[in-house]
């Protein structure tokens, strides 16, 4: 079980919650379960979500594993110059 924190814009799709609890071992599984449980997150996931695992930001690279007890934070996909 991991507590997954949501950034502001994602919260309405989880009924306003700032975090949700999900059982997932990889980013792939995390997104699949989020889609199942919170269908309104779909457009955000399609647009691209970055996942911060213990402060290190990963793009939605599915193979990335989520270590037990890690801090997981979802962030919008960002662009640079």
């Amino acid at each position, binding site marked *: 079980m991991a507590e997954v*924190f949501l*950034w*502001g*814009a994602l919260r*309405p799709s989880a009924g306003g919650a*700032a975090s949700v609890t999900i059982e997932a071992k990889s980013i792939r599984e995390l997104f699949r379960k989020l889609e199942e449980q919170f269908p309104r997150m779909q457009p955000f996931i399609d647009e691209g979500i970055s996942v*911060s695992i*213990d*402060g*290190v*930001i*990963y*793009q939605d*690279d599915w193979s*990335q594993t989520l270590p037990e007890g890690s*801090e997981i*934070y979802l*962030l*919008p996909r*960002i*662009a*640079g*110059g």
Partner: protein
Amino acid sequence: MGKETPFTKREFKSVGTRPVRPDGIDKVTGRARYGADFDMPGQLVGLILRSPHAHASIKSIDTSKAEALPGVKSVITSKDFKDISKTDTELAEILENCMARKKVYYDGHAVAAVAAVDAKTARAALKLINVEYKLLKHVTDVDLAVANKAPVINRNCKTAGVDPAPTKASNISRRSEFGHGDVDKGFKKADVIIERNFRTEQSHQGYIEPHACVASVSPDGNGELWVCTQGHFVFRQQCAQMLGMDVAKLRVTSSEIGGGFGGKTHIWLEPVALALSRKANRPVKLVMTREEVFRASGPTSATSIDIKIGVTNDGIITAGEAELRYTSGPWGGSWAMLGAMTAFACYELENVKTVGLEVLVNRPKTTAYRAPSAPMAAFAVESMIDELAKKIGMDAVEMRIKNAAKEGTQSSYGPVYGPIGIGPTLEAAKNHPHMKAPLGENQGRGMACGFWFNFGGQSCTNLNIGIDGTATLTVGTIDVGGARASLSLVVAEELGIPYDKVKAVIGDTGSLGYNEMTDGSRGTFASSMSAIKSCRIAIEDMCARAAQIWDIPVDKVIWQDGHAHATGKNNNAPLSIAEIAATAEKTGGPIAGHAQIVADGAGVSFATHICDVEVDPETGSTRVVRYTVIQDAGKAVHPTYVEGQFQGGAAQGIGWALNEEYIYGEDGRLQNPGFLDYRIPVCSDLPMIDTQILEIPNPNHPYGIRGVGETSIVPPLAAIGNAVSNATGVRMTHVPMSPPRILDALEKHSEASDEEPAL
């Protein structure tokens, strides 16, 4: 890759040295080829017709006269592109920006294009195109665009990120929110609270090389594109989709790039050139004029930021709150979102809330500019911190140190930080001799901090070992300022061979897998990670070859100092790369290492800048007299080019802070589309820019490398604002702090000084 090859505190031989860059000679002798320096046989000259109006619907376009002009080979309008708005809205908007469909949204928006045998004929043809417009009400100002009676720019735009979803169209395309804690509670604990509005004007990246490309499309669906870009793989993808071409059949070659800073991450004229070429069945060269660059490419957001910060008397920030409104041009973007994420990122706050609003206006589509959106937010936050420090009688550096984020701090945008460098840059600033240097009359000193994320992303590299033992590294990320030197150093380090035995080249889109742009400070970070992996694959192979040569098991071979060594009891002399390569034909063919990765874990970056300015009270004109940049670079691969990034970003920030702005008239037309009136800093405007590189290794990179390119543009607006305020006693809240704005502020201040105490 991050997890398998954690950072080790290794001693470097090549990395960290300062050799001459491999592409340097071509650039000092005039041989290097940039976007406009390339020709194809039989090429035509392309030109684009642009809207003189800020907002209008296109009733009709008559191109028949232009088409009939002798020497004109093709004329195109939006009709020559398939309507993709139903299948891919995001790409459709990019295409609509390249060629207006039903409406023009800004002064300079492309409406038609011609290709002709020479420039003279093309110019004449443009004049023969007749466009009938119906003028619409326009809005260019960020705050007017969100006001009640503002003309709605796009009827389909409903604010995203609001629950429940609004039904009425508005000029706010998206609302995003970040933060944690409870700001109301936080403000109750504060002894002093300040609330202000800050504004920054729109600036342009100002690269000296205008956009340019040469396109050639043949009737069999194959195409070639030579272009100055920060990401040829991305350009290929987007252009192919827009033109309905197979991605594999469009080969894009990147030219040398004459500056980009984010501005060359977006396409503008490339699909137009390709469409002109396809229609004419001839190559077409399209080069923007400087005026077109300003009117139709680039700029950053204009912003208006409402901010409120509370502190206790002993300097602890109890709450920070901001609403950030950023223009995004006629289409939505995520610029305010980036501002909202970065605004308070330097500090450890118990209670913080930021809201970003993306605002549509009749200005060119906003584009990334070096740490996009962060400088404006930092201007607001860092100006306030200085003001608050003064109010409670605390030293501004001390107050920042007290509140600085550290390892374990929850960032204002969410995640908890790993090892970060804000504290060390502040300590370095505090102890820097610059801080203690005396100031002259009318001079003031200011400082400010800045933050940027840095990115990783997809990268792909090829390493090929020549039969003489030299190495060619092919990368797919553009070299914007010395990357070939840095990557050659990394390969030299990893293989254990001299720097001058490595040649780094930028491959075209036919030679490598997909690579993301050189943006987000990712070029050296991500490509070096991939290059290291390429090297390690080749090394493994070379160890196997050595085992074959020696006829011993492969696990008895180790790699050290550029040589394969046999372990155990035998007296095989070590084999160099050249020796192994010489026998490649017999041991399995060419030696190579191909790697593709998603380079994650770029590692955030922080900077602290110190600056001294002198303000002329008569004219309001401001000179920067001393400037110091202190930034965390992770391991600095080529320190001279790291310094160059620090200095260049600071200079751009100084220009933005003091002079650079888009000026629109009542008619919504840009009034200063040229370097004469949009004045970037010249040599005589600036002092030497001192730098101090801090090397706080990035634990996610095998060499500890972080991105370094962008953070340096973040602090200058606020550092200069604070310096001006310390010189004059007036708080500046509007960037650029041009002479008229400073004079105005000085006058208002002297009028009000009887009632209000000075800052």
